[in-house]
């Protein structure tokens, strides 16, 4: 169970497309959600750690990795770690699927 008390709920997560990011806006924040081919769902901050920045939701998804659309960095969707030779970390959010709904802890 997610223990934080700030959560968002997304309904009918199974209707989300596989293999392409979806952009979630909460106030000023943007979160990118990815439904992967293995059935898992991942949520990360929609902000690249690249010094020049950039958004991530429209990147190319392969397995549990995302290729950043602007600088082609390879980023783990599991822990947010940028793969070598590049360095950095994207903020990830814990997720939980309950029934048809997805809960993301902020």
């Amino acid at each position, binding site marked *: 169970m997610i223990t934080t008390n700030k959560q968002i709920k*997304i309904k009918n997560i199974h209707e989300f497309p596989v293999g392409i990011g979806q*952009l*979630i*806006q909460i106030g000023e924040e943007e979160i990118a959600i990815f439904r992967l081919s293995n059935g898992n769902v991942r949520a990360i901050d929609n902000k690249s750690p690249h010094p020049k920045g*950039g*958004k991530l939701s*429209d990147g190319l*998804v392969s397995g549990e990795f995302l290729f950043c659309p*602007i600088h082609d960095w390879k980023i783990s969707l599991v822990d947010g770690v940028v793969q070598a*030779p590049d360095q950095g970390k994207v903020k990830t959010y814990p997720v939980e699927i309950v029934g048809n709904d997805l809960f993301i802890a902020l």
Partner: protein
Amino acid sequence: MNKKKLIMVGNGMAGVRVIEEVLKLNPYFYDITIFGSEPHPNYNRIKLSNVLQGETSFEDTIINNWNWYEENNIELFTGETVKKIDTENQFVVSSTGRKVTYDELILATGSLPFILPVPGAEKEGVIGFRDIKDCETMIKDSKRYKKAVVIGGGLLGLEAAKGLIHLGMNVDVVHLMPHLMERQLDPVASTMLKKELEEQGMNFLMEKATVELTGSERVEGIRFKDGTEAEADLVVMAAGIKPNATLAQESGIYVNRGIVVNDFMETSIPNVYAIGECAEHREIVYGLVAPLYEQGKVLAQVLCGGKNKAYEGSITGTQLKVSGIDLFSAGEIYEDSTSKSIIVHNEFEGVYKKVQLRDNRIVGIVLYGETKDSNRLFRMLTEKQDVSDLTSISFLQAVGQTEANDVASMADDEIVCGCNGIVKETIVKAIQSDGLTTVEQVGGCTNAGRSCGRCKPVIQDILEYTLGDSFDQTAKKQTICGCTTLSRDEVVAEIHEKGLTSIKEVMNVLEWQNDEGCSKCRPALNYFLGMVHYDYVDERNSRLVNEKMHANIQKDGTYSVIPRMYGGVTSAKDLRTIADVADKYNVGLVKLTGGQRIGLYGLKKEDLPAVWEDLGMPSGYAYGKTLRTVKTCVGAAFCRFGTQDSMSMGIELEKRFERLDTPHKVKMGVSACPRNCAESGIKDVGIVGLDGGWEIYVGGNGGTDLRAGDLLCKVKTEEEVLEITGAYLQYYRETALYLERTSQWIERIGLDHVKVVLADRIKRDELNGRMNQTLARYEEPWQKAIENELIRDTYYTKHQVTIVTE
């Protein structure tokens, strides 16, 4: 000890080489004085044709700069000609009246262009092709005049003609004989050369004897023996050279054709030597640089007191310095009753090779179209190697020896990858410590080669050099990416053979190392599958962001939208619509793009479908690996210079090929005349209108790899332009690496090869057939997004959610 005094008359390549050799043998032996008529230090005359052809600058032709003379204590008088030699009292007198005495005197006066003794030869606008001044005249005149005539279809004439074409002039080449370069080429090779040069825009007037140059003060025309005439604003005499031996003759030195020398380069007068193009050795006057350098070595030894090595003459090889032409010739060109030939004539690839043998030894070589073998064969010729042990088949093999490796001499801190600032040492260390074996791996570890990719060949060399014998030749293969060991060609062949129809299937069957590939292979496979199968259903999620979104992502995550504006032509109505959209969506920037259209920048992704709907225009594909734009000039519709309707032609091309998937972006241009306002010379396909026809240029690039397009062919009608362009683009689609621009592709597979393919009517029809089937499958992507809710939901939605607190 008093130094001896050495004077050299002439400051050219052959002479200065002697001085260099002398200085090498004994720098303290002589006080050296050099007289040169031209106002320049020693420069590389051979490269003048490269200067004309725009490949090098005058500065780059300098072999010995002013400092060199100073550092070696050489007294140099430029712009000063020696007028008199007193061989009795051993002194010379120059054009300024300067009198200098000598112990030893070298005559290196070179040669003069042979000016035909015809009426009018003295007119303004009649020049030779010999020195920097001639080049400067050509460059200057090309800006004011249109039509040049080059007399002489030999090495010099053809190089001059090519240079003048490069300078934008219309050029006729007049040749007395029925074949070009008849002293170096046999009729077969000569015919191939002529055809190629004609395609490059040269016009030949063969078997014409010039009898008069017409005009008032400046030349205006040329008249031939058969009564015909040609217009000429500039006449370049390149019918040959004659040794410049007047000074020697007037000074009582024996002159036949040139200044006669013995095997030690000594003239008939003691302490006077001659070398280079002014000298005649064993009845031969050499006009090429290699023998002159051999003479220089011998003479330097003689001057420094050694007569152990005599000069016994040279066998020379010839190459033509015209871009796009590979040609080599040496020794005997024509068969006689005692010689036998091995001839390989590959008409398919435009290659012709002939080796003449006598008594098991090579006595003559003619290579056209491919000259890789020239060094090897020429060495066999000069060394009189017995070839009876070699099979004639080896003639077809490439030279086995690899060329000397430049990487070894590269400094550790030399930058290899300029984009990422990676030096050689970093790469070498990474290779050694991480056991890397491929260019991709080096990129993965160091970033080198990951940006523009131009340094990849150097990285390859560093790999080979660092790994030495352990370097695995198979690792040299360029794989699509790190997910596979297969190359582009292997993957495409497997798709064909095994009938693979989806990316997933390709990865499964071909044992991909990452289940879902990467950002390199996914777009590539998506392209290859679409190229092979006309009915392929595009896998949108395997495209990178811009192609996936059909808009161009900007650095802040917003997108730009650029609608089609066929041929760069718009209307007041469309402009109003664009203005309204810009207002309505609060567009951050409205800008004219480089491709003659209007871009709207800073749009939110979720607004894109609505923006497209309001615009009501098709996507300009300004983001895709596809046809971008067809840039046009105004053309015959309005322009007083326009000879063709370039706008209509451009619009037709753009409408025909829009949306086509290609290995990389493709840009086109159509100009209505050779002034080329649409910059057709730096387009992937560039069309130039002429009176009564069109020229088609290919492989041009104005981007990272700046490259001028090559003339593919000339055609008469607009239908032919469409036909050739279609076949050309389809051939590029079918054979290029993914992300290989046409400029790189044409360099890799060869313009001649492409020409041969496209010259074949049947092949052309087949290519166009496949092109038409491919074009039939495309749908307008913006319209599709407007109509299809699922596409809008998947790609252009921003989900608004609220926080639930438990």
